[in-house]
């Protein structure tokens, strides 16, 4: 890479045009991507694109304006800056508003760029997608079809610069394979998804994506509704990440500083079972969410949210940090097209000591949860009410055998955290960037027949 990236120059140039008493933050990004979908042994679609984005935040007299566009054409860039300035004139002053200031925290270098990805050819991508479909169809006689088998990749760069002296550039590569299998038995159809994500093609686990889609679809064949009862839930790592991810969302700056988090005034309290130690750590290289800098250009850091069940702190960007009289935790997330806001980057739950088989043996009658539906509509992150549809298998005699569908489980986020009774040893780094082991919730109410 040449001495100084062009995008960083562009961002710095616009940021430095800040007038007296004005702060300007500029984020620019450029990305090349391809997506291949295979169906019936052939390419169903092949999409290629170069996309661009610019977002400008102007803070003037503590008033915030934002504007963005999907092109870096000079005329449009000037228009975006003018729009952001004009928008700022009409917002109401907020003493805490402002862009980030350099805080002297040294970044942990994370290299997200793999030259093998941009060099990977179109024919290879097509071959991967078609092979994925073929492998899923061949894996089990009950697989009746594949709804979609897809390859996706992108590589790009982004820069953040501010009139307060931040100038940060990074680039990254990534690719994924994903598949949805249809399993059939008589008139019954079930579906299962599998996916794998990496920074370059060699990091993808093709076989695992195939096995996950096939197992998840076929093991649900014959699933029935069961009777209403109190039941323990065994959350596979993916499911544990979904549920605890919602909790982590309530520990972010916006809800915490605006009275929309059930945990806003619980810092220092034991809000969760002692088996739960939860961190958000983008400096951990094992996570696909790893980043050296956050969306405001500050160095990322390891933030402890729960330490043995006790609430240690929140995830903050610079604005919500000032609102609490604290520093940013380097947790701003954004795209070039959106304002930065505090969010989760690389959530990880510390593993416990039970193997999968131990947990099944220990929790006879529990439900292994393979999929949850309605997580967006059925969970209220303000009140904490939690009610979702689940699919999975009932545990009997140390095995997860009897498939279950069309039932819901209810609890609250507050109760769920306290009701966790065990955490597995099987830490898994997920495509989402989260690292989670299996989590067992002691008791929820299940609604069925």
């Amino acid at each position, binding site marked *: 890479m040449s001495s100084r990236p062009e995008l960083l120059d562009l961002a710095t140039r616009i940021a430095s045009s800040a007038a007296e008493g004005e702060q300007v933050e500029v984020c620019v990004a450029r990305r090349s991507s391809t997506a291949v979908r295979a169906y019936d042994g052939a390419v169903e679609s092949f999409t290629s694109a170069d996309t661009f984005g610019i977002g400008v935040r102007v803070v003037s007299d503590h008033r915030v304006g934002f504007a963005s566009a999907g092109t870096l054409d000079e005329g449009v860039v000037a228009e975006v800056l003018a729009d952001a300035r004009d928008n700022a004139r009409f917002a109401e002053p907020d003493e805490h508003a402002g862009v980030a200031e350099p805080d002297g925290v040294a970044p942990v270098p994370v290299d997200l760029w793999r030259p093998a990805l941009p060099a990977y050819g179109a024919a290879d991508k097509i071959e991967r997608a078609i092979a994925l479909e073929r492998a899923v169809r061949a894996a089990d006689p009950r697989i009746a079809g594949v709804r979609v088998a897809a390859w996706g990749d992108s590589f790009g760069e982004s820069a953040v610069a501010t009139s307060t002296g931040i100038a940060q550039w990074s680039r990254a590569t990534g690719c994924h394979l994903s598949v949805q299998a249809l399993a059939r038995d008589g008139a019954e159809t079930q579906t299962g998804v599998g996916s794998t994500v990496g920074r370059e093609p060699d990091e993808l686990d093709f076989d695992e994506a195939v096995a996950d889609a096939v197992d998840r679809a076929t093991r649900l064949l014959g699933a029935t509704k069961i009777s209403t009862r109190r039941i323990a839930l065994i959350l596979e790592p993916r499911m544990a990440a979904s549920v605890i991810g919602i909790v982590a969302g309530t520990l972010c700056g916006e809800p915490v500083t605006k009275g929309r988090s059930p945990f806003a005034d619980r810092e220092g309290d034991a809000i969760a079972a002692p088996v739960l130690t939860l961190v958000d750590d983008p400096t951990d290289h094992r996570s696909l969410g790893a980043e050296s800098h956050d969306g405001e250009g500050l160095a990322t850091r390891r933030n402890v949210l729960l330490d043995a069940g006790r609430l240690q702190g929140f995830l903050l960007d610079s604005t919500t940090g000032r609102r609490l009289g604290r520093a940013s935790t380097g947790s701003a997330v954004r795209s070039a097209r959106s304002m930065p806001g505090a969010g989760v980057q690389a959530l990880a739950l510390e593993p416990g000591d039970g193997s999968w088989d131990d947990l099944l043996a220990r929790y006879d009658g529990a439900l292994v949860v393979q999929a949850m539906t309605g997580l967006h509509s*059925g969970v209220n992150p303000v*009140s904490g*009410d939690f009610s979702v549809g689940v699919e999975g298998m009932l545990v009997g005699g140390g095995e997860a055998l009897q498939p279950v569908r069309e039932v819901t489980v209810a609890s609250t986020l507050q109760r769920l955290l306290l009701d966790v009774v065990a955490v597995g040893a099987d830490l898994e780094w997920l495509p989402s960037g989260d690292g989670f082991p299996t989590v067992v919730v002691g008791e929820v109410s299940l609604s069925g027949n």
Partner: protein
Amino acid sequence: MLDEGVIKRTLSAALRTGGDFAEVFAEDKRATSARLDDGRVEELSSGRDRGVGIRVVSGETTGYAHTADMSEDGLRTAAEAAAAAARGGGGGERIVDLTRVTAPRPNPVAILPETIEKAVKVALLQRANDAARAESAAIKQVSARIGDSRRRILVANSEGLLAEDDQVRTLLSVQTVAAGDTGMQTGYETVGFTIGWELFDRVDVEEHARKVARQALTKLDARPAPSGTMPVVIGPGGGGVMFHEACGHGLEADLVGKGASVFKGRVGELVASPLVTIVDDGTMPEEWGCFAIDDEGTPAQRNVLIQDGVLTDYMWDHLRARKEGRARSGNGRRQSYQHLPMVRMSNTYLLAGQHDADEIVADTDHGVYVKHLGGGQVNTATGDFVFGMTEAYLIEGGKLTEPIREGNLIGNGPEVLTKIDAVASDFAMGNPGMCGKDGQGVPVGDGVPTLRVTELTIGGTAA
């Protein structure tokens, strides 16, 4: 938006590798948003997106490339990339003649939102905030947002079609948080139409804000939702999302074609109670999912999907209709020029019936009355769906008694359709919706009269 000569030359370039079909989709979208939170208008933002997506179809393969570079060079580069991905047998020079298709706008737009002073938007949000907070001291937080957008599109294809549309949308959404001894509860409601600033001539901002405040306040006193299987009465307008999820997605021809729908092969069969007639209608004036042309240039249509319980047809886009040798239904939509079109709903609703709404409740001994459903999700292959109840009441002895807390409803689409035993005459459209499929969001509408499902599973709330 684009010169006709440029479009023709781009289509020719797109067909050079022997594709059977080529299409140019151009889009220019401006959106603005003003957001109040925590007592102040925190942020105004604006966004601009323009670009072109070029599609080439050869046999079963689609090549697609999109670019923000709308110059002739930019278009040619994208056309070549799309063509390279979808090579056919032939090739060579082909000339395309274009004929402009004009489709009627579903409704006029009186006042373009871009002509409104930002200060006016700010004042309106402050009025919403004041009204919601004045409703009760228990209202601890209010956020409100005005969003408007203008999206101009142009579609041209190698079949000679050239069509344009100019889509304007304006909405107001309010969210409230009420706090009491039982913790915090929320209220949320959006009102919006495919019209301009005249929205605020007919929406009373204060009344809307007070209504959302009362939603949160009501839930402070709410009991945990019961769990188990029971009759559920859905209120007018508030439950259309149920039919969007329970059967709409399963009637999308792309999912049907791949065997991922429980409704595959069932056209002509009785799939629902004879009381049920379901329509998808992109022409419905002002409703959130309406448009003059879909994102493939097909004029919007009113399509009957289920007539008196009998499945009459699926919804179609260009690709699937072409494959089956049948007419398109105006359901080919995409989120933006960066996306391939696919089969999507527009405004989906269940027609009014003959029953009296009050009698339906009076005739229900024990059950749940759902005034508002939140978002939902369906697995089209199994028909299993869930959706959240954002405002619901117990029915005891034929009367609405206490409010209940949020929970999920769960059911199976094909089963629920057969278990509808009463449909009232009080049809109403619901609030603006955003439907997600394969990572693309498009605006949709839905509607429903009061109706009763004899049996649905209520997910309940923890006590």
